[in-house]
């Protein structure tokens, strides 16, 4: 029983934090939102060097093995710094290819994912018709149903961008593609990948929530009204206390899920992190007031993401159903 990150894991998270803090991530996000993927690709490379994508790739494909605890710690930092791109989708695609066991596809993609040379998007039936940032991805994997069962397609046609409420999330319906595999193995691998995507999204959401609380706390300490910092008003305090509370009780569910990757545990983490991040975003906006409502103020980079992450890769309702269904 040692239900805490160890020193090495904490240092890994700190390394990512430093790397991202040094990289002017807000500027990267704003570029990404306009379709300029250059700075995002550079950042992606640095994250790969730090080992982020190798955490989802087994050693035989030049990764570090699937390391869910480290993956969660990494995605918390990615969310905390609002890093754009198909991050969740790339690690979920890695999980899919690894589980599927089609050697050619695995050999073609997994080492490149680990090295940060491949950005993949992913479209699975349970999560709706849209692929994230397909226009910035090297390829999109799509699972659909046709005739006797599921099939896995690979396409490079991303389809026209459908703007999201989060300008940094560029959605589209991928077009066409060539068949990589068919049958129950695809169904099983897709379920595994959807679980990992929900898990990584939960971590990302928790990180977004953490950034929102950190920034709002700092803001209310310095913003004065009626001659005192607004952080001294009791309702401001209590709103932030509730925000912290939500995050701190979502966090153990996330790391508990990391230890099992059981669908019900992942679903519980996704509900808690997803509901928390949206509630925290509401609080962050309210306590910032008008300035929080502007696109030019960096807070918006996290605010707009919160709503999207609440539903991405598993709505709260679907996840609650899963929690009870799996109680046995």
């Amino acid at each position: 029983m040692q239900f805490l990150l160890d020193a090495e894991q904490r240092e890994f998270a700190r390394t990512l934090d430093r790397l991202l803090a040094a990289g002017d991530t807000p500027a990267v996000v704003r570029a990404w939102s306009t379709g300029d993927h250059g700075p995002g690709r550079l950042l992606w490379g640095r994250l790969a060097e730090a080992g982020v994508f190798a955490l989802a790739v087994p050693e035989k494909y030049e990764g570090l093995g699937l390391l869910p605890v480290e993956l969660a710690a990494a995605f918390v930092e990615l969310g905390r710094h609002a890093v754009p791109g198909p991050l969740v989708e790339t690690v979920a695609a890695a999980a899919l290819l690894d589980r599927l066991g089609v050697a050619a596809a695995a050999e073609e993609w997994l080492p490149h994912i680990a090295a940060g040379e491949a950005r993949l998007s992913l479209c699975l039936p349970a999560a709706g018709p849209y692929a994230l940032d397909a226009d910035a991805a090297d390829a999109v994997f799509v699972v659909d149903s046709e005739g006797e069962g599921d099939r896995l397609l690979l396409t490079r046609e991303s389809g026209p961008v459908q703007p999201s409420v989060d300008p940094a999330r560029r959605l589209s319906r991928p077009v066409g593609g060539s068949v990589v595999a068919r049958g129950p193995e695809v169904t099983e691998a897709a379920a595994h990948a959807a679980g990992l995507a929900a898990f990584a999204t939960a971590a990302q959401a928790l990180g977004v929530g953490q950034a929102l609380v950190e920034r709002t706390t700092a803001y209310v300490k310095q913003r004065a009204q009626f001659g005192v910092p607004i952080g001294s008003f009791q309702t401001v305090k209590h709103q932030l206390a509730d925000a912290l509370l939500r995050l701190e009780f979502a966090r153990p569910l996330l790391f508990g899920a990391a230890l099992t990757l059981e669908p019900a545990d992942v679903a519980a983490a996704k509900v808690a992190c997803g509901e928390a991040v949206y509630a925290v975003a509401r609080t962050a906006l309210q306590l910032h007031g008008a300035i929080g409502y502007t696109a030019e103020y960096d807070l918006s980079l996290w605010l707009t993401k919160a709503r999207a992450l609440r539903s991405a890769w598993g709505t709260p309702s679907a996840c609650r159903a899963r929690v009870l269904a799996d109680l046995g």
Partner: protein
Amino acid sequence: MDLAFTAEEDAFRLDARAWLAAHLPAAPLPSLETAEGFAAHRAWERELAADRWSVVSWPEPYGGRGASVVQWLVFEEEYFAAGAPGRVNQNGINLLAPTLFEHGTEEQRARILPAMASGEVIWAQAWSEPGSGSDLASLRSTATRVDGGWLLNGQKTWSSRAAFADRAFGLFRSDPGADRPHRGLTYLMFPLDAAGVTVRPIGRLDGKPAFAELFLDDVFVPDQDVIGEPGQGWAVAMSTAGNERGLTLRSPGRFTAAADRLVTLWREQADPADTALRDRVADAVIGARAYRLFTYAHASKLAQGADIGAESSLNKVYWSELDIALHETALDLLGPLGELSDAASDAPAHGGWAEGWTFSLAGPIYAGTNEIQRDIIAERLLGLPKGRR
């Protein structure tokens, strides 16, 4: 006690409905927070005004129909039920005009109101400053007396509509030596294209320039554009603020229409056995109905000559939270489509849910934050002691 409309009110409703059916734009106008949309909405104001539907509650000489509060509520119900465009001049109509009726001169009303009614002049509000949001009495922009008028200096922010509007109104510190912060303020109007005015549009969360910063550098305003007595601006503005928080800014028709659209969406999208969504849709319907009936009770009180006063804070908190809950429910009903901006080609036609949601999020902030409103409810309606907050 009754909710019955008079024959006159029923006729008024049918007139409004018929006019709207005949004149409604075939397709939704572009967002009024864009240059193109602003122009389209200004044209729509002109069309409304041509048949005296832009300011029904004003007296006829200024372009209105002298409608009663109940008639105004009826008009709003028809307006929103028809899905008619947003009102680009609502700052002027809802905030400035009531102040002019109460504190303006006859000359000001004759000069300003008809041009407002027709959409010829679109108004922006200029209340907030970078250091003064909830604490509006701490304003620092100045009005300095000069021959024949005033020179304005300083900075205003969160000036809604200012990116594209013609004129603005706000409070300026004209007597820096006044003994209390809400004394020595003067209520002034100024053109946004005047010498010395710089307008910097600010994008809201979805990037649209829904408001702007105003930089004022020796902007000359003639005496005729002061409302009320110099130095009495706070008292003058408070009547407007009450109005902004109260009946007029958010008419019930807006929410009953939105709840109706939500029910339609629910029937199209949801599994009727999904009681979690069903309950939220029902709550939106119930909430909109409650807000409508609450407003009719207010209208009845007003008709009896009563003052609404601090009760308008109840309205403000209620509609702003109802609006958010209603739009969140819509986004959840939309499933994967709920993440799309309304600009997405996949977004549901005539939906506007994403923009509506973005707009709703500002509700608890503007026109007096809901924190301030709850302080007012507790102190003025329940008589709780003032604290330091």
